[in-house]
């Protein structure tokens, strides 16, 4: 098992001028895994990458690479390469020289360099761009040069800091596919940073959701979507209705002034909880058929379904439905017991 853990952050904290950016993080990254760090701005994603890359030293804890502590090894001796958010290409060198930079440091002969760079250009679809200046490339092309420049060194881990943030939606989708394919093809471990939950869900083997320098949950995309551990994760991954509730006993919860059956248990008697309901799990029915009744406040058609806001018990509920109810209509809302997710209350900082 341990040989599977390529990178292991053990109790790692990072404190900048007295304010903690990371709080005792424990995280391991398996060989050949596509791991995504997901979280809102300022939660410590970049800091985590910079620690793995060697650009920052942990304040406490250590970083193991293949079981060896690398906390004090400088970036140029780590078998890790980085794709920076702003690309950081060398503007006084052409595309070829940018990609060849790492190989020249390793003193490879010209023929090998040519072959390797050629292969990389092919991989990122930039054959024929060798002598172009990097300033003359589009954002997406610069992005691919940055990826090729890192990958050509055959790192064991590739760190990518929001590499797609500056691209338009269409290009972003394309690059998501290309990146995922490259990762599978080359069998390299990817640590990918994003604050876009869709991107995280579609690309990753494992997602670590972060907030305020702490990891909230680690798991597969399915785990995290279906079994969010707390209200923050639930709200951040996909859209959710999150309301205050009180646990009456196991499998009985009260919220919005009504008592409902649910499937969760193990809480104290009358313990306050967060109740999470996905908008697609709410079924709109005739008012008399449901405990919860409300009035439709707004309707938006967004392609596959209608997005509606229904006001019930003084709460605005987000509801997704393929059937439209007009604004002002009285409706009932049904939720199956297994779609009522109960979560322990966490205090938000």
């Amino acid at each position, binding site marked *: 098992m341990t040989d599977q853990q390529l990178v292991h952050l053990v109790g790692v904290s990072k404190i900048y001028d007295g304010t903690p950016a990371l709080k005792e993080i424990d995280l391991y990254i398996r060989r050949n895994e596509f791991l995504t760090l997901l979280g809102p701005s300022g939660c410590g994603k970049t800091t985590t990458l910079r620690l793995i890359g060697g650009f920052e030293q942990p304040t406490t804890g250590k970083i193991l690479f293949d079981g060896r502590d690398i906390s004090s090894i400088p970036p140029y001796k780590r078998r890790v390469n980085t794709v920076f958010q702003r690309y950081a290409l060398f503007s006084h060198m052409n595309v070829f020289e940018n990609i060849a930079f790492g190989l020249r440091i390793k003193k490879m002969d010209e023929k090998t360099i040519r072959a390797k760079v050629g292969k990389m250009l092919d991989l990122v679809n930039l054959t024929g761009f060798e002598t172009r200046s990097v300033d003359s490339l589009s954002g997406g092309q610069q992005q691919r040069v940055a990826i090729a420049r890192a990958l050509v060194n055959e790192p064991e881990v590739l760190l990518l800091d929001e590499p797609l943030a500056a691209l*338009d939606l269409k290009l972003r989708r394309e690059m998501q596919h290309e990146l995922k394919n490259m990762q599978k093809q080359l069998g390299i471990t990817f640590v990918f940073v994003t604050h876009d939950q869709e991107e995280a869900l579609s690309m990753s083997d494992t997602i670590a959701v972060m907030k305020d320098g702490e990891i909230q949950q680690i798991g597969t995309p399915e785990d995290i979507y279906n079994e969010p551990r707390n209200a923050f994760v639930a709200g951040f991954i996909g859209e959710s209705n*999150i309301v205050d509730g009180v646990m009456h006993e196991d499998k009985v919860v009260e919220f919005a002034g009504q008592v409902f059956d649910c499937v969760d248990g193990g809480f104290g008697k009358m313990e306050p909880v967060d109740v999470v309901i996905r908008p697609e799990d709410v079924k709109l029915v005739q008012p008399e058929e449901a405990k919860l009744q409300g009035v439709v406040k707004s309707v938006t058609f967004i392609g596959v379904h209608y997005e509606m806001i229904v006001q019930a018990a003084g709460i605005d509920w987000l509801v997704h439905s393929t059937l439209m109810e007009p604004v002002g209509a009285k409706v009932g809302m049904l939720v199956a017991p297994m779609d009522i997710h109960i979560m322990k209350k966490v205090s938000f900082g």
Partner: protein
Amino acid sequence: MVRFLQRTYVYLIFAFLYAPIAVLISLSFNAARSRGSWGGFTLQWYVELFQDRVIMNSLYTTLFIGITSALVATIIGTAAAIGIHNSRGWQKKLVMNLTYIPVLNPEIVTGISLMILFVFAKLQFGYLTLLLAHITFNIPYVILSVLPKLRQLDKNLYEAALDLGAEPWYAFLKVILPEIMPGVITGLLLAFTLSIDDFVVSFFTTGSGVATLSITVYSMARRGINPKLNALSTIMFVAVLLLLIIVNVRQAQDEKKARRQNDKENTLSLVGRASAADIDPEWMQQQ
């Protein structure tokens, strides 16, 4: 009418500023020895100029001091700029202000204080003191030319080089230095120009037998006006003018480039903000 007056006013200012130089230049081609009359066109004074041992010696001194002080000041100034760029907080402010003060200081103060310092350090006045003085007053100008280039750099550039396996020194030589080179060269040219242009500081810090062109002009002028001086001054004027034009054009080009780069960055951050707003986790907390 107002426009006409405005224009005349501007022309008058230029006339006052440049009339003496125009007179000087035309006199340098005047065959008559006296300043009062025009005796026809000649290049005689220029020929004599290059045969004058004293003048040629001071030309070599000027060039030697100019080139050496510019090179040394560029090395020290570039290193200092990098240090300033990477420091933070009050230390950065302090050093920046210490850099500006010599630039704004009257030359005569710089000259006299350097002279006192050299006396105090018991240095023999001559080539060495002259060189040290020129290096000293050139350093701030190099710093001020290099700093803007450093600010334009992507802050991840150096890290990207390390990331690809470059040791710090290699990363500096192969990545940082080429990127800031335009600023370094502008600083070098500016330092060279200021060095050959300088009179006051040189006057106070040189020793017997060591004279720059401007010092030679001064001492010859005191002995009576010599038409050769007109020729020499004309050459110096043209040389410094050319150098300043080059420096200014370079700086203007640089600013243009910086502005373009800024525009790019602004759109980048706009895109970033837009995508962050797409997933606003706050709406659910308002529920």
